[in-house]
Structures are given as structure tokens and as C-alpha cells.
């Protein structure tokens, strides 16, 4: 039988999906030919010319990719520093009760299946 581990793993992994989207979208929407009027010089030795598109342009150019890049940075920070942000939010804001409840660990010290049965029940079980 399965418990909720699998579902929790999947839900947790799903949070990373938009990060990849933001990554490619921010790069695509900061295209230099379309958004910065850059005309690349053709080079006979290569199939495609260099597009003058570099990572540092995110920091000094304003393109449609800029808000996406800011979103990407926020998403990465919230992923990496998730626990720190949770602690900070708990200090400065009232943490909802549901969050507190989810942190409580319930340990049910139930006896193992075989111990719960009497000897004749075990024999019946094996026989069956």
C-alpha cells in the first residue's frame, strides 16, 4: 500500500516547473534583434551570426524579459532560502494556525501487526 509520500514528493517537485519557464522566457523576451534593434553582422565561417545577447544585459537593459528575470530571481531565492523565509515570516507576521498544526508530529505507538494477534489467531492466519 502507498501512503502520501509519493503525492507530497510530486507536489514539492511541481513548484520547480515555473522556474524553468521563467528562465527560458526571460532569455527569449530579452532578444536583442527584436527588443534592442541590434543587427548582427553576418559571418561567412558560421551558420548563424553572434546575437550580442549576454547575461549581464539583464542588469542594465529594460526589455520584456526584465520582469520575468526579477520573477526568476525571486523564485530561486524563495526556493533556496525557503526555511529562512519561513522563520522570518513567523517572527514578523502571525503565522497561521494551520502551519503550526502541520508542524506537530503525531507518533502513534501502535503494536506491529503480528503482536496484536493472539497465538491461535496467528496460526489461523498462517493456515489460511
Amino acid at each position, binding site marked *: *500500500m502507498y501512503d502520501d509520500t*509519493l503525492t507530497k*514528493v510530486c507536489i514539492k517537485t511541481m513548484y520547480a516547473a515555473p522556474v524553468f*519557464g521563467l528562465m*527560458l522566457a526571460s532569455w*527569449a523576451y530579452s532578444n536583442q534583434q527584436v527588443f534592442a534593434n541590434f543587427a548582427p553582422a553576418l559571418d561567412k565561417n*558560421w551558420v548563424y551570426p553572434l546575437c550580442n545577447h549576454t547575461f549581464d544585459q539583464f542588469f542594465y537593459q529594460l526589455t520584456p524579459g526584465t520582469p520575468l528575470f526579477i520573477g526568476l530571481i525571486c523564485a530561486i531565492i524563495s526556493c533556496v532560502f525557503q526555511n529562512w523565509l519561513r522563520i522570518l515570516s513567523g517572527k514578523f507576521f502571525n503565522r497561521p494556525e494551520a502551519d503550526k498544526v502541520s508542524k506537530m508530529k503525531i507518533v502513534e505507538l501502535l503494536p506491529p501487526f503480528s503482536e496484536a494477534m493472539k497465538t491461535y489467531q496467528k496460526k489461523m492466519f498462517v493456515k489460511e
Partner: protein
Amino acid sequence: MTGFVIFNVISQSVSIFIIMLNFIARLFFMCLAEYVGFRNDSEKASFITTTVFVSAFFQTGWLCLVAPWSTSREFDEGGVNKLFTGIYTDFNPDWFADVGYTIQYNMIFNIFWPIMEFFMYYGLRHLTRMWDQRKWWPNAPEKTRSQTLSNFEKIYLGPLFLVHYKYSFLMNIIFCTFMYGPLLPILFPIALC
């Protein structure tokens, strides 16, 4: 016309090859999980889901992006110039026609793949039933030659619902759609199918 046909055939065969590799990777990881020795079924299923998803996403999502990418001219040294030695320096119209087409075809093929897989396994089950009853159309399970009940169940029961594989398959589709969706918005309705 011939060039167009060849281009289409190559692109489609690449997509089918990727899906087949995903299928092989899934079988490999499921076999591997049998030997690891997990404490319970949930841990085993989580392991299979994660590994199958990571390998499938690498093949379906990352490889299509990284393999044709070129950084050999932007970076003269430092090892990065040797890392990506493809042809595309940025997302240009040819990238969409070449790589974008492959990704899109991949996702369309993913719509039909579960149905194809069902019929593939149905065919295998049908073959074992044919062999069991020694008939072309095995419609009489009471004429089984199985010696034990477990063997009979093995032959005549329906397929197993592999929840871990379904999860990893869905996650792969969602991740690929989110990754390439801003570039190829058609992927969102395709993923819905």
C-alpha cells in the same frame, strides 16, 4: 519536396527515439528499484517517480535545448566554449523550425503514447492467453492449462496501474510545457490533451 520530407522524417524519428529512450529508462529504473531494498512501497515508488522523471525530463526537455546550443564563440576560454558546441547562438526562426518542431512533435506523440502502450501490453497479454488456451481467439478462460491459481491470475488479470510511472509521465509533460510554453504557446493546449 524531398528535402522537406527528409527533414520531417528525421525530426519525427528523433521524437520517437526520445520517447522510446524514456520507456527504456523507466524499465531500467523499475528493475533497479527491485534491488535497492526499500523499507516500504511508498519509498520505492517515490524513488522510481523521481528517477524516471529526471531522466525523462533530461532527454525530453534539457537535451533539446542544450545539444544544439552554441557558446563556442561567446566564450574564448574557460571550458565553457567546449561545453556547448551546437549551431544556435540564440532563439532564432530556424531554432523554432528545427528544435521547436521536435519538441512540439514530442509533446503531440506523448498524447498518443499511453494509448499505444496500452495496446502494446494488451497484445502481450492476448498472446499469453492464446498460448494458454491454444486458440487464436482466447475467449474461454475455463479451458486454461494453468496448474495454479496464481499463474491463472497472472495470465488473465488486467494490467497493473503503475502510479509512479503515471506521476513521472505527467510531471515530465508539465515541466516541458512550462519550460517551452513561453516560446511555444501551442504546448499548453497540447499538454491539456
